[in-house]
């Protein structure tokens, strides 16, 4: 590529909003106030799995400042799934719980009141009559025949490929013949890896303020990471024309994937529609941590066939994403995971089964690294275990197996922007790691011997 002469791309100009951030003058959603604004708080499930027998608002209604409550009956299209916009289905998550709750912290009913204190107080006085049900928390337990069934279609896993007339319990990648290669391998190296769920921990918690406008539209001030995505989902849930909604975002106080779920906006818009007044719904820190989505936990099993010279000739991976109670973004994360869980290496035989599993846990969803972070963790620890098993320097093992431009990855995509070898060389230089000549001679454009694997 010819060197381009650039003026400002490549320059560390000061960020435009930097002064506002460091002097506390940037306006965030929680700073927005309207004179007659109401506050929305949620009644949440105290248990991970239960049947709802009834809800009693009578004590809540006595709280001074109580305005009204909302239940699933108020939500026009209560059952949704966020990724319906890209064809993922079926719908399976309630905006507000109907007859069952599937995780501790799930939204059951909303209370709107004149002040935040009144909303908190009223929500705490709502009595939900629950019949607790057996819960399942472990992804592999959830797939056993005796596990409580969480989904209306009768399985605790997402069904892939229904759009192709198939019903697959997992996302599959098949490349070459792993079993034949295992038979030829000098070593078999196996590993089990468990990614933990973590909190996005944004400085600004998820929230929105909805203002009814005189022209019959609704302005939604929100810190979503995806304005139109959230607008479209909200309009579908509320069964109103898309152009009734006007979303305004701006600088978000940290997203990390935690603000691509569509949780606060639909119910806050509904509350504004029902009351004709501005409504604020902002998560407390506790709600952000205990109720909103986390990084999905992930369990991964690896079996690799390796030759004495370090070539990995087969990789068989079975992985289970813990979606928690609902889809959110996990079905898609699993597909992205499947495309990356063989790692940035050229392995001629790969077999992957990647499951999206439901449990009675707080939903997992999008987070920085989305399906790839668990893959990179497992792959890279597995690489060191292989190196340790066969007695090879971990750097050398990675150089030998690194993908090159022109290689075909297990999901059949031709590699065209690979620089793994150059990146490893730069890191080695940075830390003073001396690499042998035959590794330094490698690059990402030519495979030794002149042919691509």
């Amino acid at each position: 590529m010819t060197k381009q002469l650039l003026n400002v791309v490549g320059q560390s100009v000061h960020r435009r909003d930097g002064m506002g951030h460091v002097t506390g003058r940037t306006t965030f959603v929680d700073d927005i106030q309207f004179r007659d604004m109401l506050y929305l708080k949620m009644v949440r499930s105290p248990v991970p799995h239960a049947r709802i027998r009834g809800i009693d608002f009578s004590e809540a209604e006595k709280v001074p400042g109580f305005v009204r409550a909302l239940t699933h009956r108020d939500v026009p299209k209560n059952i949704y799934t966020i990724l319906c916009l890209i064809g993922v289905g079926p719908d399976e998550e309630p905006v507000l719980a109907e007859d069952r709750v599937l995780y501790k912290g799930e939204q059951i009913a909303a209370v709107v009141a004149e002040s935040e204190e009144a909303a908190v107080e009223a929500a705490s006085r709502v009595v939900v009559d629950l019949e607790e049900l057996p819960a399942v928390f472990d992804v592999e337990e959830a797939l056993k025949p005796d596990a409580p069934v969480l989904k209306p279609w009768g399985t605790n896993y997402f069904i892939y490929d229904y759009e192709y007339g198939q019903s697959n319990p997992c996302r599959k990648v098949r490349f070459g013949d792993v079993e034949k290669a295992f038979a030829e391998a000098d070593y078999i190296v196996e590993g089990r890896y468990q990614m933990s769920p973590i909190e996005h921990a944004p400085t600004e918690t998820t929230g929105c303020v909805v203002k009814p406008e005189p022209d019959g539209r609704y302005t939604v001030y929100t810190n979503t990471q995806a304005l139109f995505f959230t607008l479209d989902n909200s309009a579908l849930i509320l069964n109103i024309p898309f152009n009734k909604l006007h979303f305004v975002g701006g600088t978000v106080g940290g997203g990390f994937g935690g603000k691509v779920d569509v949780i606060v906006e639909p119910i806050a818009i509904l509350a504004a529609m029902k009351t004709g007044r501005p409504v604020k719904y902002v998560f407390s820190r506790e709600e952000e941590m205990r109720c909103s989505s986390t990084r999905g936990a992930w369990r991964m099993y690896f079996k690799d066939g390796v030759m004495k010279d370090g070539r990995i000739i087969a990789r068989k991976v079975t992985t289970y994403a813990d979606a928690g109670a609902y889809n959110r973004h996990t079905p898609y994360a699993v597909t992205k995971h499947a495309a990356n869980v063989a790692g940035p290496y050229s392995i001629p035989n790969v077999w992957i089964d990647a499951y999206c599993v439901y449990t009675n846990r707080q939903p997992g969803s999008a987070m920085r690294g989305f399906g790839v972070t668990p893959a990179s963790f497992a792959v890279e620890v597995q690489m060191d275990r292989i190196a340790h098993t066969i007695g090879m320097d971990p750097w050398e093992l990675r150089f030998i197996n690194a993908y090159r431009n022109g290689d075909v990855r297990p999901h059949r995509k031709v590699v065209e922007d690979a620089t793994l070898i150059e990146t490893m060389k730069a890191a080695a230089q940075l830390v003073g790691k001396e690499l042998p000549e035959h590794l330094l001679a490698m690059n990402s454009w030519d495979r030794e011997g002149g042919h691509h694997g």
Partner: protein
Amino acid sequence: MAKHRGVGMAAVNYPTGMNLGGDPSQALIHATTTGTFVITLSSTDLGQGLKTVIAQIGAEALGVPFENVLIDTADTDTGPHCMGTFASRATHRVGNAVIRAAEEARKVMFEVASEELEVAPEDLETDGQGNIRVKGSPEHSINIVDLALAAHFKYGKTISGRGMYIKPKSEVDPDTGAMDPDSTEAHACTVAEVEVDDETGEVKVLSIKSAYEIGRQVNPKLVEGQIQGGSLMGMAHALYETTAPYYPAIDHAPGGFNEYIVPGPQDQPEIESVVLEYPSVNGPFGVKGVGEMTANSPIPAIINAIHDAVGVWITELPATPEKILRALEEKRKEEERGAE
């Protein structure tokens, strides 16, 4: 009982963008009569500096000073569609859309300048300082404020452009998993050095040193911000953070920062990095993306460093003192069994 040092490495790829439903973003550009070029979007800035880097890309593509470019974003009534800020996609997708919009706006700029300077449009160039000048004859030039005024009041032209970038939807083959799920690959290689206390199980990360290859740096300081933040986030993921301390059990879920452990200033290791630039085939000015992956490579590098230090594989995150002590105890028992 002793403290043991260990070094571990990890090398990772990171894909840019999503596209299993198609991945589009749009941008509109227009010049006001003040010589300001307004880039209108509906993309959100998560604090990573999107508004700044898109203004840089816009200024570069238009050939005008950074100060003359204004980002008007995050309003669905005025801004054209953007899928959102995630999947390390924003700089790549929105940047590409802005470049296309800028090409259209530049065409009008050159048409107007051609009239004003009485030379053919192909004989003109921008100087990046706010002027359009005649190639080889820089004293013949027109300032963009005068140009914008002339376009509007004299020639009845709008200096504007529409830009669109879409990565088309990729189907996934149900039988083989064949798919095209992303646009380009960035890379990272991290070397972590740790000190493990075999009495308390505590891990102290001494340094996180990494090389990154991210196509093109639009703003090196903002890239450095991602590297610093991502390195710490990865370290926290490896050692401290979880919403379920006894996963998969849901007990003891933290409800605030008193209970949810994140690293503090005292835990900050030495963080050092180098950034390589191998321009991508499809990113704006070769951009790949750095948003997400900086948190990924430190995790396995630290786990591998722990093994190097004390000889145990901690394969369930986070690597808490409890897990390390239990693994060390198991290792001792195995060694005793082996000695018998």
